[in-house]
């Protein structure tokens, strides 16, 4: 069970870590100072969540790895984040489309994990769910504003959503291990979450005067370490110092 729990915590922590890292790339380059600050806020929350989940993962593993070791000394194929969060920022519409889908999912997930049978998970989720409620609202606001803004912003938002739509199955993917954890009341049953998330997404898209894209061929594999070409590049940048100076403390 411990290895299943470890894997599950990696999935939770890596999602937050990788999306937080992506949002860091916006820093200093956003369309307005206000947007810059709100993206930093999201990134800070996500890095904080990653620190808690990966820290706990390290404890469960009991192999002497802490959150930093897990964040900075694993190769791409050992990361367990979903494909959606590792996708490049693209323009602001694409970033918000990605954020909207991920935060809507994460909100439903954490909401459920607040009553996890694992006390530590429940505790982290209780803290994080408040943050993520704000993320989901903020991203939804932008989906509406851009979708129902100008012709250009609408086109970009449609394109942004289109870019993300291939990765929905991957977001909700569960393996037998995770199902076992869900049966034990530790993990959430993602299949049960999906209609909830879908309902929320439909509602916001309606408000944005956008229609739900059809589901194209789905790309999956994030949860088992089969990522896109983007993750290894993201990691090369993120991990460069700890890799170049093994053993150094910062």
């Amino acid at each position, binding site marked *: 069970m411990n290895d299943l729990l470890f894997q599950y915590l990696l999935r939770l922590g890596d999602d937050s870590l990788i999306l937080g890292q992506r949002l860091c790339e916006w*820093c200093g*380059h956003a369309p307005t100072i206000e947007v810059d600050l709100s993206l930093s806020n999201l990134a800070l929350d996500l890095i904080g969540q990653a620190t808690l989940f990966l820290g706990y993962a390290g404890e469960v593993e009991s192999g002497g790895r802490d959150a930093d070791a897990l964040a900075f000394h694993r190769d791409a194929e050992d990361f367990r984040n979903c494909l959606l969060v590792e996708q490049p920022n693209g323009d602001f519409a694409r970033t918000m489309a990605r954020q909207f889908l991920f935060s809507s999912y994460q909100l439903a997930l954490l909401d459920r994990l607040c009553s996890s049978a694992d006390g530590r998970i429940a505790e982290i989720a209780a803290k994080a769910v408040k943050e993520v409620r704000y993320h989901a609202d903020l991203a939804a606001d932008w989906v509406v504003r*851009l979708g129902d803004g100008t012709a250009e912003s609408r086109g970009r938002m449609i394109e942004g959503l289109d870019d993300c739509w291939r990765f929905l199955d991957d977001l909700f993917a569960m393996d037998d291990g995770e199902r076992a954890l869900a049966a034990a009341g530790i993990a959430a049953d993602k299949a049960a979450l999906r209609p909830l998330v879908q309902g929320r997404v439909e509602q916001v898209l309606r408000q944005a005067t956008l229609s739900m894209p059809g589901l194209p061929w789905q790309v999956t594999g994030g949860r088992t370490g089969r990522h896109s070409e983007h993750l290894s590049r993201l990691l090369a940048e*993120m991990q*460069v110092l700890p890799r170049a100076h093994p053993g150094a403390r910062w």
Partner: protein
Amino acid sequence: PALLAAFEARVANDEFIEPKDWMPEAYRRTLTRQISQHAHSEIVGMLPEGNWLTRAPSLKRKAILLAKIQDEGGHGLYLYCAAETLGTSREQMIEALHAGKAKYSTIFNYPTLNWADIGAIGWLVDGAAIMNQVPLQRTSYGPYARAMVRVCKEESFHQRQGYDLLLEMMKGTPEQRAMVQDAMNRWWWPSLMMFGPPDDNSPNSAQSIRWRIKRETNDELRQKFVDATVPQAELLGITVPDPDLQWNEERGHYDFGAIDWNEFYAVVRGEGPVARERMKARRAAWDEGAWVREAAAAWEARQAARRAAAA
């Protein structure tokens, strides 16, 4: 002239001037230039640190740096607001920056080359900024003075964090210690330049001091900074890259070497080592974000129209 006399009397009496109060045009102009320049510095200053944000070597350091840059954005935001109370819009100020008409602190035209630079910026650059800004908490223009109170508090915190980062690295590997020394070598002189040209070549100083827009001269502040910083460098265990630096018992101050003012004026002219990159990055952010701002404005307008129609 009566207005002017009353104004000068209030300022001399250390009272705050508020946005609705009468003020001389030159005062308004000088303040707008100074506050917007300060705001621009905060925003451009996000870039050199942002350069290492995605490469921060631990989760804790990444979070600290992110929060710090966020604070700078926040400072920029309320400094723009303070400047706007003088009658220039944020857009106008930003366009002046992008057109090369408005300046920002010369220091942000230097590159960040290793992780210790993040510490050095906190320690030296924020340290120098605090020296400049602490007196401004009592400057004559109310909104600016109040903004400075908050800015100074946060900058002091950043300075301690920067110093702490360097202390940690000095406890580390030889490579880490070399990075700290290298950062010191590169940031020391540009930090001294942050206080501006020497007093005998600083044309606006006298009036600015009379108006309490400035409260100490460039050279006074620079000396204060050197006196405060040299002992901190010793504590860190690094060398100040100035062979002429020595304690002057008689003056009760450190003597230090000559600053390369040619370099300073080149950087002021916009020819600093990474000036092109900084301005390109800011312009690109602004231009590529235009459609977002337009969309948000269009949506707001439509909402307002709907509300009006419903009322």
